[in-house]
């Protein structure tokens, strides 16, 4: 719901908001600009009487003095060709240059306020400010939800590309935008006289003046007590009207001064309404507070970027969802399918299910599990299709599902079925689906059918589940799932280095050219996506539709795609890759893996890997141009055979991209495993981790288990465990 409002407002209001924000950003520079051009005020304190006296002497036909928010003093006076205005040097009272209201600023102000369309335009702009406020609040709310609560809103965001840019920039701009929009709405309400601003209230005009000859302006007692910095406006009496008096407005109030006696005839302090209006006006414009103006401007100038990145994010999300032909809104659907997917393959199954149920005449809604609503008024059944991420964690589109489930107090009337997707090779097969099932049963949600699991995207198992579902629903349903091929790019091998043949672990480091998509392809989202070390590349061996994933050892900035591949006995894909020679090509695509990226900040990084697990870790070190302290623990079999990246590591040590390298080789005399090396370094590691270091582990399952055990042991004296570090986002694993 929130996402829908956010997208709808952002897209429909994009043009208006861009005009509003860009003009606002330009105007925000003005206070600083004016300040730079202001004449420096006299060092000694000076009263309004001093100024009025000097100006009256130097500029005989002066009618009005104004102190602009920038501190500049302007005199309006008669001139040889009619009325004129001059900037005044307060020290001498002399006119130093003609003053003209800056036409550009006025034009920009009118555009910003009303699009030159009068009150209709003002209403439109006020609506724009309201839309921006809703966008900011809903954006913050969604960010908080994704981060796991308002308390974690400032933590580094997960995600990639435009989505990440949108989130990060949005959080940066939020404060300025909130201030801008709230003050804008207040000013709009005041303009339309819906809240009082008190500016029209002036003290009643005095009936009695003492009469008699006017004193020189410099001797007016009432003006002597007012410091120049307090002045707003001083209007001299009209010489043709003998009853007229001085009109004075200051920062505190307004009054009239008798030109003959110099006494204050009437004075009124500003009302609370007036003072709050002025405060809001200053907060909105930054007038007289130039640094605030610049701060607001930074918020405003990020709006166009937010608009474009939000639009792109919306478009790519829509493309993913649009493939549901005839998706029914959640509130009207009799069958609700919610999907938990990390890489996207579960969405493919959901599409097959959606199409089959729709063909049977059902009104079917499909969406991510994170969009779980409080109620589905028309629903008769709900089907949850979910994969599992890593060691039993929620996949990307279901990361907030269990939390949202907690917020729903009422049990639904419709029954729910859970279908898990996973790979039986992994110990936590379909763990998240099991967790979801358990959570539902614990809350007493009715079950449509027992939990089922699909191993390795098996179409047969899916079809069988479809038959069971059909039986429960009392209809016939045929689920024929054809796996979709992801959009792939052609990569050409440019170099390979072979290791480990002598120790029965043939491994090679393969480097491919980065495909050069045109700008147009990239804008259309068809280029090779940006990637960082730790992300995955999916490779489709010839005549095979099931991709195999490898961790990337390079980033877009490196200009090439690099992976480490160990040849598995009978492995289809690894055999194919080991057979490649420079010049050969293959089909591949990128899959983001945000959970295995170094967290932001400059805290030390402890990288632990064995065998091909060094790939992404080497990529992190290669990308470490900021010389963040990185420590690598590497385990192999024999330094003379499978010391992957051996020569590069030596060079990176020298360049300062990493601080220390510790190795363990299992097939040499006195050798051991990488976890043994960790134990030997217990003290140093404890110190580093207590100081905030992040641990990243990559390699086979056995090695990861060994590392976890070693770290559990050596951290115990410090009162820490890997589980605690994991919860803090300081322990990441990429295990295969």
């Amino acid at each position, binding site marked *: 719901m929130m996402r829908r409002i956010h997208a709808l407002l952002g897209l429909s209001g994009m043009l208006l908001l861009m005009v509003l924000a860009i003009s606002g950003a330009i105007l925000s520079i003005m206070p600083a600009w004016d300040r730079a051009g202001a004449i420096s005020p006299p060092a000694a304190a000076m009263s309004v009487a001093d100024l009025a006296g000097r100006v009256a002497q130097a500029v005989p036909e002066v009618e009005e003095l104004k102190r602009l928010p920038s501190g500049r003093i302007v005199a309006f006076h008669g001139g040889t060709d009619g*009325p004129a205005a001059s900037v005044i040097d307060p020290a001498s009272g002399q006119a130093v240059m003609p003053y003209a209201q800056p036409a550009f600023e006025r034009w920009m102000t009118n555009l910003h306020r009303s699009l030159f369309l009068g009150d209709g335009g003002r209403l439109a702009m006020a609506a724009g400010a309201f839309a921006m406020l809703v966008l900011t609040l809903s954006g913050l709310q969604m960010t908080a939800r994704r981060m796991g609560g308002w308390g974690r809103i400032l933590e580094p965001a997960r995600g990639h590309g435009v989505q990440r840019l949108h989130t990060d920039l949005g959080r940066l701009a939020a404060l300025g935008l909130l201030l801008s929009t709230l003050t804008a709405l207040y000013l709009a309400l005041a303009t339309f006289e819906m809240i009082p601003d008190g500016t029209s209230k002036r003290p009643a005009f005095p009936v009695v003046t003492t009469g008699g000859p006017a004193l020189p302006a410099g001797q007016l007692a009432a003006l002597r007590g007012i410091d120049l910095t307090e002045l707003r406006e001083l209007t001299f009496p009209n010489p043709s009207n003998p009853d007229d008096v001085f009109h004075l407005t200051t920062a505190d109030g307004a009054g009239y001064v008798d030109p003959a006696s110099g006494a204050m005839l009437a004075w009124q302090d500003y009302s609370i309404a007036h003072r709050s209006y002025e405060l809001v006006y200053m907060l909105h414009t930054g007038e007289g507070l130039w640094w605030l103006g610049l701060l607001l401007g930074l918020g405003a100038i990020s709006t166009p970027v937010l608009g474009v990145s939000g639009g792109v994010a919306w478009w790519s999300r829509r493309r993913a969802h649009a493939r549901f032909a005839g998706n029914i809104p959640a509130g009207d659907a009799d069958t609700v399918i919610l999907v938990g997917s990390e890489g996207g393959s579960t969405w493919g199954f959901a599409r097959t299910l959606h199409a089959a149920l729709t063909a049977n005449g059902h009104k079917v809604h499909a969406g991510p599990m994170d969009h779980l609503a409080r109620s589905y008024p028309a629903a008769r059944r709900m089907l949850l299709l979910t994969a599992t991420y890593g060691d039993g964690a929620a996949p990307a589109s279901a990361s907030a599902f269990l939390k949202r489930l907690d917020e729903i107090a009422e049990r639904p009337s419709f029954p729910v079925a859970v279908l898990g997707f996973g790979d039986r090779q992994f110990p936590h097969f379909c763990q998240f689906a099991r967790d979801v099932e358990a959570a539902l049963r614990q809350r007493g949600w009715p079950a449509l059918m027992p939990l089922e699991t699909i191993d390795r995207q098996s179409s047969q198992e899916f079809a069988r589940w479809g038959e069971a579902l059909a039986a429960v629903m009392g209809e016939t349903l045929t689920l024929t799932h054809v796996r979709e091929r992801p959009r792939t790019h052609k990569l050409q091998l440019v170099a390979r280095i072979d290791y480990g043949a002598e120790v029965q672990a043939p491994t090679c480091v393969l480097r491919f050219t980065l495909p050069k998509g045109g700008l147009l392809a990239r804008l259309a989202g068809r280029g090779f996506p940006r990637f960082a070390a730790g992300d995955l590349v999916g490779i489709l061996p010839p005549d095979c539709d099931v991709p195999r994933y490898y961790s990337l050892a390079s980033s877009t900035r490196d200009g090439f795609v690099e992976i480490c591949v160990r040849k598995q006995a009978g492995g289809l894909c690894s055999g194919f890759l080991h057979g490649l020679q420079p010049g050969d090509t293959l089909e591949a695509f990128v899959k983001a893996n945000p959970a295995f990226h170094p967290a932001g900040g400059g805290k030390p990084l402890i990288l632990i890997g064995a065998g091909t697990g060094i790939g992404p870790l080497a990529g992190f070190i290669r990308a470490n141009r900021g010389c963040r302290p990185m420590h690598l623990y590497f385990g192999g079999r024999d330094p003379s055979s499978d010391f992957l990246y051996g020569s590069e590591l030596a060079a990176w040590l020298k360049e300062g991209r990493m601080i220390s390298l510790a190795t363990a080789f299992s097939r040499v005399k006195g050798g051991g495993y990488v976890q043994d090396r960790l134990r030997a370094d217990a003290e140093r590691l404890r110190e580093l981790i207590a100081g905030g270091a992040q641990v990243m582990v990559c390699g086979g399952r056995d090695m990861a288990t060994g590392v976890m055990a070693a770290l559990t042991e050596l951290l115990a004296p410090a009162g820490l465990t890997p589980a605690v570090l994991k919860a803090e986002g300081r322990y990441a694993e990429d295990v295969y």
Partner: protein
Amino acid sequence: MKSLLLALVISTALTAPELAAARSVTLTTTLNNYGGDGAYLALYVTDAAGAYKGTLWVAGGKSKYYSHLSGWERGSGGNLAQISGITGASVGAGRTLKVTLDLADALFDAGYKLHIDAAVEDMRDSPSDVVVPLTSAGAGQPVKGRNYIRSFTYGM
């Protein structure tokens, strides 16, 4: 003085009955190109001693800015009920405001003066930008204002 006030009030009604002691007067106010936003104007009448007698027209839609028309506000007390029906939009720089009203004959050649106060946002306030005596002879004679008004004419 009742006749003037009566005439002023009647002048606001589109269905004003023909009055024997009134004449139709067109007030034409043309502004300078002063390079600012639209001007707020107040056209009002004072007697020979300068005492406020009544309002003919107020240009400018938002009453909260009327306090910048200080001569008018001082005279009228800013009473909005008095000007209901005789207000219009503000007048842009270089533009002309034309208002036609029925004015009592008694107003002419009797020492009454017509004032125009003008004010523009972020620029100076200009009370009594124009002050012109109402006489039969003065009709059709353009008058120049102090700040914002290039010419003002009243024609019968």
